[in-house]
């Protein structure tokens, strides 16, 4: 059976667990613990190892969804789970402090996965801020990484339909990159996170 392994990354409170719950066709495996750091995200629990869900595209294809903890102190889990992943669905909460810088920081962190497969950015909670212009993110990315093409969409992490659109955008990017690599006879990049 062919399978896609997709990572859900982004800061604490961006909606990674909600997104996987919205998408998964199986009961999600969660590793939540009481949240001691309510100043960063005011929610009772936080993911400390991973979330896991699955989607069956057809009888021969499955998408495995892995959510990583948002806090940097769990970055060893980012490395472990990035090893098998083909792409990253990066969720950034638009109402957080410095969301544009955060998005760029995470893109750099998972850049090896961009080279191997792809990254898409989903801006969550965009309705809660006066301005969350997609262009602002796209322009900042273009300034920072001129040769990089990363789609940016606003999404509601709780919406199965919106998250599916974002996921399919990512998978299309991954398959396109793979097809281009196959046609010119080179493999796409490999490896984990980019060295900092």
């Amino acid at each position, binding site marked *: 059976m062919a399978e896609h392994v997709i990572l859900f990354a982004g800061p604490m409170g961006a909606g990674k667990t909600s997104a996987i719950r919205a998408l998964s066709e199986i009961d999600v495996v969660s590793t939540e613990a009481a*949240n001691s750091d309510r100043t960063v995200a005011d929610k009772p629990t936080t993911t400390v190892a991973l979330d896991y869900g699955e989607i069956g595209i057809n009888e021969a294809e499955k998408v495995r969804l892995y959510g990583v903890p948002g806090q940097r102190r769990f970055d060893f889990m980012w490395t472990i789970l990035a090893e098998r992943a083909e792409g990253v669905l990066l969720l950034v909460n638009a109402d957080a402090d410095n969301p544009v810088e955060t998005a760029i920081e995470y893109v750099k962190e998972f850049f090896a996965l961009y080279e191997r497969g792809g990254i898409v950015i989903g801006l969550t909670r965009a309705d809660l801020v006066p301005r969350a212009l997609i262009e602002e993110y796209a322009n900042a990315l273009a300034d920072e990484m001129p040769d990089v093409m990363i789609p940016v969409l606003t999404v509601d992490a709780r919406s199965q339909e919106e998250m599916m659109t974002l996921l399919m955008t990512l998978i299309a990017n991954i398959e396109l990159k793979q097809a281009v690599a196959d046609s010119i006879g080179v493999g796409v990049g490999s490896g984990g996170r980019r060295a900092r």
Partner: protein
Amino acid sequence: MTLAPHLDSKYIVRGELALGGLRDLAPSLRYASLLTEDGFSVVSVAGNEFDSNRFASMASSTQALADAVARELQLGDNEFVIVAAEEGHVVQVRVQGHPLVLAALFTDRETIGGSLTAARRTARRLTTLLMAK
């Protein structure tokens, strides 16, 4: 607003007392940490060759994964976690009634049974210490 355990002097002082007792119970203790279940180090003792924050984060993830396995397999509550390696082992137990985990690394001079007994006894003692006014 309730103070998080890793910032609360009650947890820090009583945690130090309990972990000091663990060292007396098990001389082969190499390192021990009392951590919040979401991976903040409250207090640690013994060897300083480890990054206490990283140890606490890894112990938090390990504990949550073990809990998830027990839950998925419908085994009831997970009681403890043991990571046994060639040159030592890590034992983790929850502190009953509090969002805390005790994680202790022992050298291979201690049996796993002995380490587990010492860790459980320490967690129970900490529960008692935290009940006192």
